[in-house]
């Protein structure tokens, strides 16, 4: 039986109890921050919307309703966010668009985080010329403005959501590499690493098995904080017509679609913008909250 008292005890009886207690304390500290909870709520809502999109959306996101009578209708009870120029329900499109947003965020995190970790830990662990070369490469990628580099990559690979994701991932890993390197520099001289080395562990094993896990928490915080930027970059690419292609309900592309009618039918471009804004805000708040709780260096 897990109780509050058992979790918060000063003398944990087992390693598991200590670990669970630590997690519980972190969670309590996290819940004390109302803004962070709002952020968590928004992110959870995004996930629920994405998973249950066909059940939540009242209409089909791609198929037009009656083109003669249902184009560009203002928000109403039947269409909470109005309809667009193709007579599609904007609310349904936004709900389905959550899937694309979540896909972009998840894939970029899955691609960029391991690259950043691998480059950073390798660089920090070996030092010397390996470090110099890897960090020079990282600096070159950091020297480019991110959106511009992503634009150039998409221009070369061709427009589309997959290429946009690859381009964003290619431009996202350098800060993680920097961070992981900085963490590794403090870890590599620790006694427990020396102990493992004396036991004959290979460098690869030390890096992946013992250094990387210790870098993870700070890199994860950084990734969460970057999510908003990733969403905004993806939306920007979509807006320029280089991300998801029509008729896919990508939020940035939806704004571009509504841009022509903004003066007369404001809701077509405004609604997807609100969606982008709320989701980025959610990730920003969640990231700030996580940093306050998990990063001992920031504040306290």
């Amino acid at each position, binding site marked *: 039986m897990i109780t509050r008292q058992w979790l918060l005890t000063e003398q944990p009886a087992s390693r598991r109890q200590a670990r669970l207690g630590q997690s519980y304390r972190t969670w309590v500290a996290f819940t004390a921050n109302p803004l962070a909870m709002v952020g968590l709520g928004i992110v959870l809502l995004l996930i629920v919307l994405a998973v249950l999109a066909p059940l939540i959306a009242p209409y089909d996101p791609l198929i037009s309703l009656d083109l003669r009578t249902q184009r560009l209708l203002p928000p109403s009870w039947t269409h909470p966010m109005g309809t667009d120029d193709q007579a599609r329900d904007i609310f349904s499109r936004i709900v389905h668009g959550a899937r694309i947003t979540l896909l972009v965020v998840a894939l970029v995190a899955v691609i960029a985080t391991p690259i950043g970790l691998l480059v950073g830990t390798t660089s920090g662990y070996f030092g010397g010329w390996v470090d110099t070369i890897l960090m*020079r*490469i990282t*600096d*070159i*990628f950091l*020297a*480019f*403005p*991110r*959106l*511009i*580099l992503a*634009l*150039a*990559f*998409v*221009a*070369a*690979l*061709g427009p589309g959501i997959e290429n946009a994701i690859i381009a964003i991932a290619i431009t996202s890993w350098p800060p993680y590499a920097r961070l992981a390197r900085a963490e590794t520099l403090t870890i590599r001289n620790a006694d427990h690493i020396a102990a493992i080395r004396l036991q004959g562990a290979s460098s690869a094993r030390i890096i992946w098995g013992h250094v990387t896990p210790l870098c993870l928490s700070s890199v994860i915080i950084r990734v969460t904080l970057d999510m*908003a930027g990733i969403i*905004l970059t993806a*939306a*920007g690419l979509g*807006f*320029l*017509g*280089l991300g998801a292609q029509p008729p896919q309900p990508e939020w*940035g592309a939806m*704004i571009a679609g509504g*841009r022509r009618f*903004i*003066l007369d039918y*404001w809701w077509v*471009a*405004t609604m997807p*913008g609100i969606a*982008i*804004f709320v989701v*980025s*805000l959610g990730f*920003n*708040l969640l990231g700030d909250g996580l940093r306050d709780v998990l990063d001992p260096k920031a504040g306290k």
Partner: protein
Amino acid sequence: MADTSVQGEGRRGALPAWPWKLVKLGATVALTFLGLLLVTFLIGRVVPVDPVLAVIGDRASQSVYDRVFVELGLDRPLYEQFWMYLQRVASGDFGESFLTKKPIAQDIARVFPATMELATVSIILGTLAGVPLGVLAAVRQGRLTDQIVRVVGLIGYSAPIFWLGLLGLLVFYARLHWVSGPGRIDISYEYSITPASGFLLFDTAMQGQWDAFRNVFGHIILPASLLGYYSMAYISRMTRSFMLTELAQEYIITARVKGVPEWRIIWVHALRNAAVPLVTVIALSYAGLLEGSVLTETVFAWPGLGQYLTNSLQNADMNAVLGGTLVIGGIFVGLNLLSDLLYTLLDPRVRRK
């Protein structure tokens, strides 16, 4: 800016390290530039567009194709091609635009002043608003002012700039008629002013054409405020944290004990020391504006580098895209370097290390 005389004696030991540091910095910058060039070169190589067909069209005979293939150096190994690319870029030749049929360097020189004017007005607005806000937030840490500054910053970090731009046009141009619409200047004025520097605000003011000046101002104020808002979000956040560091220092306590008025402690003593890292932040956000300008210029039909880049992108004009990317990347690296140098110049403590 910073009071260098206080730590003057620390400089003597640092002087011999100066040239060595410059050499190192120069090598770093050269390497970064080389990397930039390599990246754009490689991007240019993976494009699915055949560079030969882009030159001769798809109706040319096989013999013409083979000749151009050799002329473009495509039969040589990749490193030789890269070397040729380096030589061309070094002589300012980025190739010819397939859209405008002009050399890309010339195109970029034509559109660049518009972007620079926009970015400059934006950074002025952003700094003028961001620094006082950041100072206020630091002084009233944890209170309402601080929370407001935080929220303003969060909105800046979360809202897509192109969306805010569209909403701005909708509200301030279409509904309230406070500002002029998209574009840089009304057509009626466009040919009445003689372009001198390419910066329209400056040109019209120098020629005393105040009507045209007002017109240009009406066009630039909305996109510049928007971009300025984004740099303000960053500048105020950094000002706040620098000021918090300074206000916790012992010299502040000394000043208080001496009975220096509080406003003087904040705006003169603390801000002057916070100004050193702030210069770096402002230089970096100026570079960031180049990136923001790509989306903003698209929304506001601003005839600058950002719009040139997106137009070229949409027409698969690869030479122009890579030229534009290289120029923006180069300016980015340049501004980074400049902020590094300024930091070293202004802060004697950094120089000593």
